[in-house]
């Protein structure tokens, strides 16, 4: 309801600009509780332009979702006497914990690169600790390995090579962004870009939060902020359960 209102207000505000977007989303918070197994984030919107314009003139939409920054170590295994052991490592800092890119049409990679729409922008790539890895090809392998491994965890996807966002009625579009159960906690940003005649502009940006709720959040906070109390409670609970079970089954056996 709130979102629809936002759209109406935006429509009113955007009057006068020739091409623009209005955007809404069904969630401003994703909560991780006891049986969280991933969730879809619905992002929808409309082109604000003359409805009689042909589809091409309205341009294309790119939606980029970025999760909270993380430090990621990528390790390469090497065979030592037949055993596969971790050997060299590279540390990537400030990598979005979640990255998802989708669009209404196939988008040229050059356009994305020119506008810094990528997992690691050139500013970020200075945050990489390459260690012993010097060859450009090796470095490329490590970067790709990071993307591939994050992709396997459903935490990284670039879908700009084909039209993934549905367009309804020529003016409306919507897409579901799959948020997996491995998703990191923190602040996320959704950036929406409008591409007209290979001119790209960021049109809209908003944030949402992924947070823990309920007993999971209590347990996690206790474990991080008061680890000694948490540890003592874990030990006490285990001891108590062991004692109760022994007593219970002893009495059961007597029956």
């Amino acid at each position, binding site marked *: 309801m709130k979102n629809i209102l936002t759209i109406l207000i935006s429509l009113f505000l955007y009057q006068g600009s020739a091409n623009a977007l209005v955007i809404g989303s069904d969630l401003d918070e994703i909560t991780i509780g006891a049986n969280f197994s991933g969730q879809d984030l619905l992002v929808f919107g409309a082109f604000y332009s003359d409805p009689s314009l042909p589809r091409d003139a309205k341009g294309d939409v790119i939606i980029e979702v970025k999760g909270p920054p993380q430090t990621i170590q990528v390790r390469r295994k090497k065979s030592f006497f037949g055993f596969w052991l*971790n050997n060299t490592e590279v540390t990537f800092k400030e990598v979005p914990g979640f990255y998802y890119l989708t669009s209404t049409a196939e988008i040229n990679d050059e356009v994305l690169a020119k506008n810094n729409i990528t997992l690691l922008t050139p500013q970020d790539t200075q945050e990489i600790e390459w260690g012993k890895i010097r060859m450009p090809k090796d470095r490329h392998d490590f970067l790709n390995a990071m993307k591939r491994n994050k992709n396997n965890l459903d935490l990284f996807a670039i879908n700009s090579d084909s039209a993934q966002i549905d367009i309804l009625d020529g003016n409306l579009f919507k897409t579901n962004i799959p948020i997996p159960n491995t998703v990191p906690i923190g602040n996320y940003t959704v950036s929406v870009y409008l591409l007209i005649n290979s001119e790209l502009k960021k049109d809209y940006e908003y944030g949402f939060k992924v947070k823990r709720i309920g007993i999971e959040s209590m347990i996690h906070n206790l474990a991080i902020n008061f680890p000694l109390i948490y540890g003592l409670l874990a030990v006490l609970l*285990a001891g108590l359960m062991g004692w109760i079970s022994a007593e219970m089954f002893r009495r059961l056996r007597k029956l």
Partner: protein
Amino acid sequence: MNIYLPIAELSVNIFIILSLGGAVGFLSGMLGLGGGFLMTPLLMFIGIPPNVAVATSANQIVAASVSGALSHWRQGLVDVKMGMYLLAGGLFGSYTGIWIFKLLTSAGQIETFLSIVYFILLFSIGILMLVESSQVIRDRIRKKTVKRKLHYHNWAHRLPFKVRFYASNLYISVIPPIIIGYFIGILSATMGIGGSFILIPSMIYFLGMPTSKVIGTSLFQIIFITAFVTLLHATSTFAVDAVLAFTLILSSVIGAQLGVLFTNKFRGEELRALLAIIVLAVAFKIGVDLLIQPADIFSITVIKELY
């Protein structure tokens, strides 16, 4: 149905966890073993991060050993004094173990380390159990009875700082129990096990303790060692997952009681032969994973800014 593990930060199918806990509990109840040496590698097989598997497994063993120690305690089969000396060494050992664990984690080798030590451990346990149980079965078929020595006199009896252990009828140096405890402590903290399968034979062969007191005493000291290891992991690796531990304890105590019921239905040596095969199968899987080139030679770890 999925359950979210707040420390492992992933959701798993609750029935997988329940059946894993139940199965390990069943085997441990049936054979009188702790089962930690199966729990940790099996948790890692289903995708639990190695640090969480080790720390949580230690937490689970607290419950299993309290449950087991109580019945031995009631029958007066615990040598508390011996337990205390083992414990003294064990506390220092677990401290060393945590230090090793953190060192290997930061070097990125903890997974390989666990694979190698678990492979060696499970392979040797499996072979020993298989040989021992098949010998007993063969002897039974040939109707042979084997006489065993009750007391071993060895180097351990010639060391200084001798103390009288009335409950075990021993007059030995305190050095061997402290050293044995120390090594068990290291194993417990690095591998998430109680270590009874090493502790029990050591107590019989090195310390010369009577067999009747060995299990109760080892369970008694394992309670405190694994409790201490849980605390150390909770405060230094932050990897104890209470939700995972709770689920495992719940299913393993029930499994253990069912296992005890089954013990009377089968012969011990046949059960041990069965366990030996299971243990060897797990060892085989770990060994193959170490030797076969992984599908992806790259792996990623997210660094938590907690340590």
